[in-house]
């Protein structure tokens, strides 16, 4: 009995992991430079942008304004309003699917979450591209041929800074959620009806 229930329990558990996104950042971008020994760490949540200090965003915007990058203003980023709704939709539908306990619905949910995640990453790339390339021509400093786009994932040198872009707790838990719902679906397909 419990063995039959196992994929369902794993699926439900993995779906509930997504609630962590309301508490932990999805992503982080760390800027390192000699004058910033502790680094400036920006945290991207599904509904806000923060950092290691409440003033992180202001400090990043101050740095960015020298090269004419547009200030990052969370209120003008529509994704921060849309994403929470999408995540809630995934959590509710995931719970319902777990209760229905249907293998096709399991698979469908996982595929939709992977598609949503991929679109999200592409959207993140577009924002980064936009911030990195759409510079004010009157900016105090201009660097011929230099790109200020932070890396999508990984490490990159941007003038005097090293920028490191990586998932934060919420991002990792989302990946774990995808992994476990995939495993649950696989087990479900394998198990005899």
């Amino acid at each position, binding site marked *: 009995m419990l063995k039959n229930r196992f994929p369902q329990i794993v699926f439900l558990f993995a779906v509930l992991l997504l609630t962590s996104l309301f508490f932990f950042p999805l992503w982080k971008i760390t800027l390192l430079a000699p004058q910033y020994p502790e680094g400036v760490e920006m945290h991207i949540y599904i509904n806000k942008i923060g950092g290691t*200090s*409440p*003033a992180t965003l*202001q*400090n990043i915007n*101050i740095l960015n304004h*020298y090269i004419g990058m547009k200030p990052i203003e969370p209120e003008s980023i529509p994704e921060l309003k849309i994403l929470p709704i999408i995540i809630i939709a995934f959590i509710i539908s995931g719970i319902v699917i777990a209760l229905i306990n249907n293998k096709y619905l399991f698979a469908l949910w996982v595929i939709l979450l992977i598609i949503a995640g991929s679109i999200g990453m592409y959207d993140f790339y577009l924002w980064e591209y936009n911030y990195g390339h759409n510079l004010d021509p009157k900016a*105090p*400093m201009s660097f011929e041929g230099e790109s200020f786009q932070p890396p999508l994932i990984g490490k990159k040198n941007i003038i005097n800074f090293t920028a490191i872009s990586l998932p934060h707790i919420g991002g990792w838990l989302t990946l774990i959620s995808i992994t476990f719902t995939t495993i649950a679906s696989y087990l479900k397909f394998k198990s005899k009806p």
Partner: protein
Amino acid sequence: MFKNSKSFLSIFATVIIASLLSCNTTENQASGLLNNDVASKVYVKPGDYDEFYGFMSGGFSGQLSVYGLPSGRLLKVIPVFSQDAEKAYGYNEETKPMLNTSYGFVPWDDAHHPELSQTNGETDGRWIFINGNNTPRVARIDLTTFETVEIIELPNSSGNHSSPFTTENTEYVVAGTRFSVPIPQKDVAIDSYKENFKGALSFIKVDDEGHMNIAFQVLLPAFDYDLAHSGKGKSHGWTFFTTYNTEESHTLKEVTASQNDKDFIAAINWKLAEKYIAEGKGVDFPAEHYVNRYDDKTHMATSTKVSTVKVLRPEDCPGLVYFLPTPKSPHGIDVDPTGEYIIGSGKLSADLTAHSFTNMLAAIEAKEFETTIASIPVLKYDKVIGGVVKKPGLGPLHTEFDDKGNAYTTFFISSEVVKWKVGTWEVLDRVPTYYSVGHLMIPGGDSKKPQGKYMVALNKITKDRYLPTGPEMNHSAQLYDISGDKMQLLLDFPTIGEPHYAQAISADRIQSKSKKFYPIEENEHPHRALGEKQTKVERNGNEVHIYMTSIRSHFAPDNIEGIKVGDKVYVHLTNLEQDFDVPHGLAIQGANTSEILVMPGQTETMVWRPKREGVFAFYCTDFCSALHQEMQGYIRVSAKNSNTPLKWSLGLDEEL
């Protein structure tokens, strides 16, 4: 490929082994050197931190300096009693009230004794207090911001020298008068000293927020009350003051006040004083004085007048005060970590006197009185004495303790520090100082928990220790290693002003609590501008208020017109930065004051009275960023009767 990685591995292994070997050899060499090489004992690697914060009084500079120990690196000078143009302390509108007294604005004092706050007899890193000797005051410095946050004036006092020594939970800091004066002050002949003069000892209550108020004063004969320390452990509840000039002389004191073989230590039972105050024995004396407090939210100081103090008189309060005869003109008074021994350093005596607290209580119990002076029982010397250190040196001044039962006493005349054993009174070691040491300091050395690793000698004479700098030399301090049996000189470094006493505390009791910036959302300054949209210029008659902000790398507004000759212009600058170590300064050409230097999240005000027509530049004085040199602006000053409209702006197309 395989071969390559194999050879790579073997190279890798060789490198590791080689480096281990080389580590070993250097370690061996280093430990061999360490025994002799004092440099490595004070060497703090670039980027590393010192083990202790050292706080040294600035003496006649009026300030408090902060040194890292053991490196001897100057970390900061905290302005306390003197105006400091560097930080605009006492120049900007916010801190001027800090230096207010019943005599008006007093921009200088003579700072002597820093004293850290304590909990259970241990330094706790909350605050440090320091006395102003000349116009009697006690200041409190907050050790999260390293800024002076409170100064209380002491009425009925003159030469606030036996001050500000704490009780073991910082219930009180005490402040005794060195010079006796008519109390309350009046116009009398100086030679009516014995008849008209008195000495007042103040007990300043410190509440949980650190706020100071004078709880009571004890009115005593017209002696000079030189230094103090409070009891600890078993003697908690008592405070001891040394006296000289028990001859009650008023002229040529170097001779006339040095006649008596024994002067006194005044022992005050402050727990009993609290009872007498509760019983209403305190008499209200007229005593106008000011309490000045700085608020970290409004970023402003306010000065409040207090008109009276409660005074306790020994004749009304039996058991409040006893005199302990002590040879001869005792200067320093220091209580050992157990609270049993009270060491009085008779500066003109050949010996060092240690009174026993237990004996003192027994003598009081048995009424072993030699005599009574002004209702104060004088205890019999041989009934209170606990021990004598015989002929340890010349001119003993001050004693501090380590955590191994040893005491260290400075000798001004023989210019040395002598280590001796508490209880056996034997001299263990002596080291020279350069030159004529006054106070000494061991971290926690006047608390219940000394950390006997280092000792600092604070000297009065410098002479040839450093490159000459004209007739005036900074005073020198020496750092000694006292962890072993023998004291070892490690380092010699100059200090600011004259470092009288000092204190030190483990860095970890302060470091993590040190504030990095002021959260701007907590800024309650009445003239703040919490964003560029809030900046403005307002005129009210000839008074103009400019609400200005700074952020890398511009002021807002940076073009201002409509100011007139004869205006009184208040420039309120709010630093919008919220990052560690990004202050912005502001200076205006021709302003008859200092710059202002504004920390992130703070608001400060400069008053400027433009005297000439023209266009005057202002700029940021603290190199803040790559475009610091561009951080500048202009103010247009028009004639008194002109009608140039008031306007302000930032950038060509930006509206504020």
